């Protein structure tokens, strides 16, 4: 077994020091307290700031514990609780869009369907709760990949499975697509999973804005997309509104 990693030990010491001190600390005070060179302390603080574990006061340049750290122990959200909290808004989305609604979370590099509302036309449909879908070929999956940095790890670096000729298979194309999704705040797939079908999805955020799942609609491409093959803007708005409403209920203040 390898020995302890020094930089993590030092990072932990900085967090303990900040937790103990009542006010904010400057980089010099931290370096002195822990007997570290100033440059080393600064590098560690920058990294901790990057992941949200510490925050820097813009006026004084001093450091304190970050909000992400405070929510670390409570950010886990049970999938059944997610369904329970989202059920009203998922129903409203299905009623408004006249399409079926699914909510997904990440499970071992795939999308786990945790909630499913039938398309409101009273045709025979089967409940898909518990089924798994590929991340890179679904709107739900692409949202989860775009906003959860850990979710992409399981995909690897090689080419991705092609389900149709429109499936994104090259990792660099997927990376570009995900950057676009992060920019606009929602994702679509058009015949990337099944010919003739399309979907739109948006992220569900929990406490502190952490993405805990995705909500989306899917259906026949001619209903989801306009004449030019672009996702219908009214449907995009419905999906994003529903995602925001669930996020608000889950305590994500800013979305």
């Amino acid at each position, binding site marked *: 077994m390898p020995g302890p990693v020094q930089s993590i030990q030092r990072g932990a010491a900085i967090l303990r020091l900040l937790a103990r001190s009542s006010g904010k600390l400057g980089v010099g005070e931290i370096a002195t307290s822990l007997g570290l060179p100033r440059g080393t302390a600064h590098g560690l603080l920058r990294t901790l700031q990057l992941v949200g574990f510490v925050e820097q006061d813009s006026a004084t340049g001093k450091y304190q514990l970050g909000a992400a750290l405070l929510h670390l122990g409570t950010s886990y959200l*049970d*999938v*059944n*609780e997610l*369904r*329970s909290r989202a*059920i*009203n808004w998922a*129903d*409203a989305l*299905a*009623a*408004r869009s006249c399409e079926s609604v699914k909510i997904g979370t990440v499970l071992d590099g795939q999308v786990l369907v945790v909630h*499913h*509302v*039938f398309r*409101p*036309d*009273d045709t025979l*449909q089967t*409940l898909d*709760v*518990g089924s798994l879908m590929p991340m890179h070929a679904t709107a739900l999956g692409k949202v989860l990949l775009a906003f959860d940095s850990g979710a992409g790890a399981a995909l690897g670096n090689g080419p991705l499975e092609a389900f149709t000729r429109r499936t994104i298979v090259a990792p660099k194309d997927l990376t570009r697509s995900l950057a676009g999704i992060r920019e606009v705040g929602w994702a679509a797939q058009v015949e990337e999973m099944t010919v003739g079908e399309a979907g739109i999805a948006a992220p569900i955020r929990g406490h502190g804005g952490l993405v805990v799942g995705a909500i989306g609609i899917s259906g026949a491409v001619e209903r989801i997309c306009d004449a030019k093959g672009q996702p219908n803007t009214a449907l995009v708005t419905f999906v994003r509104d529903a995602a925001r409403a669930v996020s608000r209920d889950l305590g994500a203040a800013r979305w």
Partner: protein
Amino acid sequence: MATRYVMSIDQGTTSTRCIIFDQQGRLVSVTQREHRQHFPQPGWVEHDAVEIWRNLERIAPEALRQAGVGLEQVAAIGIANQRETTLVWDRHTGVPLRRAIVWQDTRTTALVDELAARPEASMVQKRCGLPLATYFSAPRIRWLLDEVPGLRERAERGEVLFGTMESWLIWNLTGGPDGGLHLTDVTNASRTLLMDLTTLEWDDDLLDFFGVPRAMLPQIRPSTETYGVARTVLPGVRIGAALGDQQAALFGQTCFAPGEAKCTYGTGGFLLLNTGKDPVRSTHGLLTTVGYQVGAEPAVYALEAPIAVTGALVQWFRDGLGLINSAPEIETLAKTVDDNGGCYIVPAFAGLFAPHWRSEARGVIVGLTSYITKGHLARAVLEATAWQTREVVDAMNADSGLALRGLKVDGGMTADNLLMQCIADVLDVPVVRPMVAETVSLGAAYAAGLAVGYWPDLEGLRRNWHRAAQWLPAMDPARRESEYDNWRRAVERTFGWLQPRR
């Protein structure tokens, strides 16, 4: 013309909610506020009616704000309420004389025993359709009249008013001491033990039997009718409906035809079956009640099976045992195992309601072995709700002579897929959840919208109903039978636990 909406007020046991619906019956905004539960003595449960009114004053405008809807866009208000909860207040000051006595409260046990011993007691169920039990309002009114000094005299002079929660809210909304309307609807009145089920009027013999002065009672009105206009909180908006919460859910599930049934799973469970224009008298432990009355049309009746403890068992698992952090996690825990491991929980926390009506029963956990884990217990918790549903469905089939072909479900527990599958399995019929799980609120909104012409007729409402999810039975019949047999044996073990005081 600006889009118009309907607002529902659901004054429930733990909270008050306001929901705004659009013309397609879709939910536009929701606000909610919980109120305190007071437990002054074992078996006593009370609510502060003023706190409930203040909550409504806060959440109703909030719901409009959230939806971006102006008062002039609200076509009507519909009210659904916790039933049988009993309040008396001063007509001149608007101040309640005591806290409201909640439907779960059993302080009237001795009084009910005493009343039941009288020779005229057999008249009660014949006249009002309900057994003489602590569950209903009349014994609570009598208890208050006996207990509060001077109350009887003041009630006889009409200075003190009785009402269930819808009466209290309507009275306050329409002006309170300054000309507030004192009325109730047929569904709520049918839960008092004081109304004749066929004439839909307060019955003199029942009033005499319980010793309740007529002067304190509200006027009985149809469930769907423009009662008046709100003068405060939502000034100028018409109040178009009031229904007991379970009847509102029946309405919201659009169970408008005889033979259609719904089950609402909340703290307790309530199965209601529409029986049409004639009341069906139960011989299998069910209640006969009014389902709804649309304007001047004849009332529609229902058979009702209340199950005392469904969601409350999950709450106990969370709060009493601390085995889960939130109610939905019960499903996660239950899924860690494949079956109940031979363990059964019968939640007769305060006796058993339909179809057994055993007030002396108390809960049991049976089949415990060292093999049982918290996962098995979680499964037994969910199965308890499914098997209790099976028992009341069997009773309903026997009373109505019809076999239930499918069950419409609603309420918070319908988010639990494992439970819904389990119910389909043990009933051996499809279980269907509608697009709007908030059927209590939707029913109140539908009824109010109907009163003011926002929706044309019952058929129009039916078209708004859509299936959101369906669970099909997938259990081996032999296993169903042996599990049911185990359940029944577990239930028998709860009987007779509480012994009469010597």
